[in-house]
C-alpha cells in the first residue's frame, strides 16, 4: 500500500535529514524508532505530504504522492509531533472546522465529531475553549482530529507524549483496534509503546534505516548479547563511556548494569572499570530496548569502520 523508495531529504544548509530511506509497508502498525534528530519527523512530514523529498519516491496505492498528493491526503490522518490548536475555539468547533477542511460537512461531520469526542473521552469538555485544556487533553484532541476522515493511512508522531498512563494504555488499545486493513505509522521514543502495538519496527539513525522487521526478529538479533554486570558506583561514569548500557539498578554501594555487547563485559576487559569482585557479566533475556540500542550502536560502528 505504501512504498517509500530511496527517499533523501537535504535541508538548506546542507543538513541531510534522510538518506536513501526505503520501506514497503502493508496494513499493520509500523513503529518508527530513533534518537533525537534521526529524521523521524522529517520522514513523517514527507509521508504526510507536508514537505517533499529531495530525491526518491513515495507511492500510495501506486500513486506518486509528490505528483498526486490529493490521492493520499484524502486517505490520511496525521498527528504531528508539535501541533497547536486555536485556543479560543471549543474542541467541538475545532474538530468541526478540520472536518470541513477534510471534506466532511453537515450532519455527517457533527456525528463524527461526537463519536470521536466520546472515543477520546472528551465529551464533557467538548464545549470548553481549547485554551483551558491540559496538555494531555489537547493531545487527545489531536488524536481525534487525525481520525476525523476515517483514514486508511494514519501517521502519528509521538502520540502518547503528555498522556497519563491510563490514557496511554487506552490509546494503545485504540491503535491496535484501528490497525485492521489500515497502514498505521507510529513514531515514538517510547519503546514500550511500540512493543505493545507494532507489527513491524523500523529503526532510523542519522537519516538511514538501520533495522527493519517484526519485533520478534529484532529481539533475536540481541539474543545472547545482553548481560548484567555489577560495578562500583564510582565506576559508573567510566562504564557509561565504554559500554552500551540499557539500564541501571542500585545495589547498595554498587550498580547493576544492563549491558548490550557481543561478549560478557569482563571477558575482554573494560578500561578503567574493574567490576564488582571482578565477576563476569551474566546473560539476560533481551528486550526490545536492548535490540534498539544494539541496532543503533552497530550502525554507528559500521559507519566508523567505513
Amino acid at each position, binding site marked *: 500500500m505504501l512504498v517509500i523508495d530511496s527517499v533523501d531529504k537535504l535541508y538548506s544548509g546542507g543538513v541531510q535529514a534522510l538518506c536513501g530511506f526505503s520501506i514497503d509497508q502493508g496494513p499493520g502498525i509500523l513503529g518508527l524508532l530513533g534518537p533525537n534528530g534521526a529524521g523521524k519527523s522529517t520522514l513523517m512530514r514527507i509521508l504526510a505530504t507536508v514537505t517533499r523529498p529531495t530525491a526518491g519516491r513515495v507511492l500510495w496505492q501506486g500513486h506518486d504522492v509528490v505528483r498526486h498528493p490529493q490521492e493520499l491526503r*484524502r486517505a490520511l490522518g496525521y498527528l504531528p509531533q508539535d*501541533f497547536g490548536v486555536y485556543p479560543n475555539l471549543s474542541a467541538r*468547533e475545532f474538530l468541526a472546522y478540520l472536518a470541513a*477542511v477534510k471534506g466532511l460537512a453537515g450532519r455527517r461531520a457533527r456525528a463524527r465529531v461526537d463519536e470521536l469526542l466520546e472515543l477520546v473521552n472528551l465529551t464533557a469538555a467538548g464545549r470548553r475553549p481549547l485554551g483551558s485544556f491540559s496538555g494531555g487533553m489537547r493531545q487527545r484532541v489531536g488524536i481525534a482530529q487525525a481520525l476525523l476522515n476515517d483514514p486508511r493511512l494514519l501517521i502519528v508522531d509521538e502520540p502518547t507524549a503528555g498522556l497519563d498512563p491510563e490514557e496511554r494504555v487506552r490509546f494503545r488499545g485504540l491503535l491496535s483496534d484501528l490497525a485492521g486493513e489500515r497502514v498505521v505509522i507510529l513514531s515514538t521514543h517510547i519503546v514500550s509503546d511500540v512493543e505493545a502495538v507494532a507489527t513491524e519496527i523500523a529503526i532510523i539513525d542519522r537519516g538511514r534505516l538501520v533495522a527493519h522487521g517484526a519485533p520478534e526478529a529484532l529481539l533475536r538479533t540481541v539474543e545472547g548479547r545482553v548481560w548484567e554486570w555489577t560495578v562500583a558506583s564510582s565506576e559508573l561514569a567510566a562504564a*557509561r563511556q565504554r559500554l552500551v*548500557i540499557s*539500564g541501571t539498578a542500585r545495589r547498595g554501594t554498587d550498580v547493576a548494569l544492563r549491558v548490550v555487547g557481543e561478549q560478557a563485559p569482563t571477558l575482554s576487559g573494560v578500561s578503567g572499570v574493574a567490576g564488582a569482585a571482578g565477576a563476569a557479566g551474566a546473560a539476560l533475556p533481551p528486550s526490545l530496548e536492548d535490540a534498539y540500542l544494539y541496532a543503533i550502536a552497530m550502525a*554507528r560502528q559500521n559507519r566508523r569502520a567505513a
Partner: protein
Amino acid sequence: MSDMAAAAFTLRQVHAIARADLRERRRRFSYLATLAGTLYFLYLVHAGNVRLTIHGQRGVYNSAWIGTLMALSVGSLLSLIGFYLVKNTLDGDRRTGVGEILAATPMSRAAYTLGKAMSNFSLLASILALCAVAAGITQLLAREEARLDLVALLLPMAALAAPPVALAAAMAVLFEAIAWLRGSLGNVIFFFLWIGWLSLSAIGPGIDPLGFQLVESSFARQLPAPAGAAAAAAARGGISLNIGPGGPAAPAGAEESAGPKTGSAAAAAKGAGHQAGRPAGQAPRPPLPSGIHWRGIDWTAAVVAPRLGWLGIAFAIALVAALPFSRFDPAREGGKRPRPSRRAAATPPLDPAPAGEPVATPATPATPATSARPETSDAALATGHGRPGSGLERRWTGGRWWQELAAGAPRSRALVLVIAELRLLLRGRGFWWYAAAAGLWIGGLAAPAGQARATLLALAWIWPLPLWSEMGAREARYGTRPLVLSAPLPPGLQTAAAWAAGIGLTALAGSGVGLRLALAGDARGCGAWLAGCLFIPALALALGTLSGSPRLFEVVYLLLWYAGPMSGVAELDYTGATAAARAAGVAWTYPTLAAALFTVAWAARARRER
C-alpha cells in the same frame, strides 16, 4: 470527483477556514481592544474632531455627508491600521502547528489563502459595521438634518470604505505568504504602499482606492457657481480630511494649511498629536459657510464599477497569495537549520575496549525509555526559529554571558546583561543589512550638518526598525518568558538592561550624524539627537512589553517617523531635524516621555513577575 462537486468542496473549505479563523480572532482580547479604540474614534467624530472639507466647505450633517465623512475617515485609517491588525493569521497557524495539520489535508492552497483573506476582511468589516451604526447616531445627535436616509448613510461605507479595507485584508495574506515580506520589511513596505494609495487619489477618481476624488468631484458638481475671488480661491482647495480639534472659526480653506491634500498620515498624526493635549469634547464642529445640502454621490454604474473593480483586485490578490504560500513546508519556509551537535549522537562501540586502550566515543545516549520528549524537533531544526528550544532560545540561555552573570560580581552584572541584550539585538541580520547601516553611518558623517540632521538621521533611525521591534516582545514571541523570569536578577534589571542596550543600538546607528553635529558645534542638534536615542528604544520596549508583538511598535513608529522627521510636524520630530522642532523643546520633552515609557515597560514587566 466532478467539477461541480470539487467546486462545492472548495467553497466549503473556504467557508470553514474563514469561519474558524474569524471565531478564534473575535474571541481574543485584542479584538475587544480594537473595538474600544474604534469607539474612541467614533467619539472623536461625534465631538467634531474628524472633519471633512471639500473646496474649503463642509456640507450640512445629513446622511450623505455623515456617511461619506465616516467612510472616508474609517476607510483611510482601517486600510492602514487594519493591515497590521490582521497580518498574523498565517503566522498563527505556523507558530501553533495547526498549519501542519492543515497541510496534510486535501485543502488547496487557494482555498486557504482565500479563506484567510475573507476572515481578515470580515474582521475589519465588523469594525466598518460598527462605524456605520455610529454614523446614524452621529447624524441624529448633530441635529442639522433630522431625516435619516439609510441608503445615503450606508452606501458610502460599502462602496468607499470596503474596497480599500478589502485590499488591506488581501495584502495582509499576500505579505504573510511571501517569506521576506512577513516581518518588519513587509510592514515598512506596506506603509509606503499606503502612502502611494493616498497620492493615487490626486490622479483621478477611477484609480483612487480610498475614494477621495470620487467624493470631491461629486461635491464640486453640486456646488453653486463660484461667485467672486474668495469662492474661486476656496474651489482650488480640493478635499481635506483632518483628525484632531479644529480652530473655533476656521475660514474656508484654512484646513488645507494644516496638512497635505487628501488627509495624509501627517495631517492625521498631527491632529492626533494636538488631540492628546486638549479635551476632545471641547473642539467645535467646523464652520458651515455655505450650508450646502450635499445629496451624496450619484451611484451610477460608471461610479460603482471601479469600486467593484477594487474588490475584484482584492479577490485576485488573495488568490495570487496561494502561489508563494509554502503550505507550511519547513523546507520552504526559509531560515537556517542549525547543525546537529557532534557530541549528541556519539555511542560507544559494542565490544568493550581492551584494558588500557583509549576509546574514542565519549558518551552513551540516553535510553529511549527515559527520553519522554525530544529536545529539538525536526521542525525547529529545519526552520531554526519560532519555537522554544530553537536558535534564539539557545543563544539566550547558552551564551558565555550567562555563566559570567551567574558567577560575576554584582557590579559587573548589569554591564554583562546590557552586553548580552545588545548582542541579542544585533544578531540575525544578513551582511547587506549591516552594509547599508554602515553606508548610512558614513553618509551621516560626511554630509553637511544640515542635511545630515534633516535627512540622514531620519534614514539611519528607520533602518534598525526590525531590531527595535523585538524589544520587549521577544520573550512572548519565542516563549522564553519563563526562562527569563525565573532568572536570579534584581527586579527591573533586565528591563533596564534592555533599554540601555536599545539606547546603545540607537546611538550606534545614528552616531555618524551625532559625530557630525558635534563637530559642527550644534549643541541643540546634539541635544535632540540624544533625546531620540533615549526615546526610540523606550517606545519600542514599552509597546513590545505591553503587546507582546513587534507590530504595534512598528505601526506607531512608522506613523511617528513619517509625520515627524519626514513631514516636519515639529512636535512629533523626535530627531530635531527642523529649527521649529528644536525650538519646541524636543531635547526636553522626549527624554521625559522616554522615562515615562520606560516606567510603563518596567511596571508591565513587574506585574508579570508577580
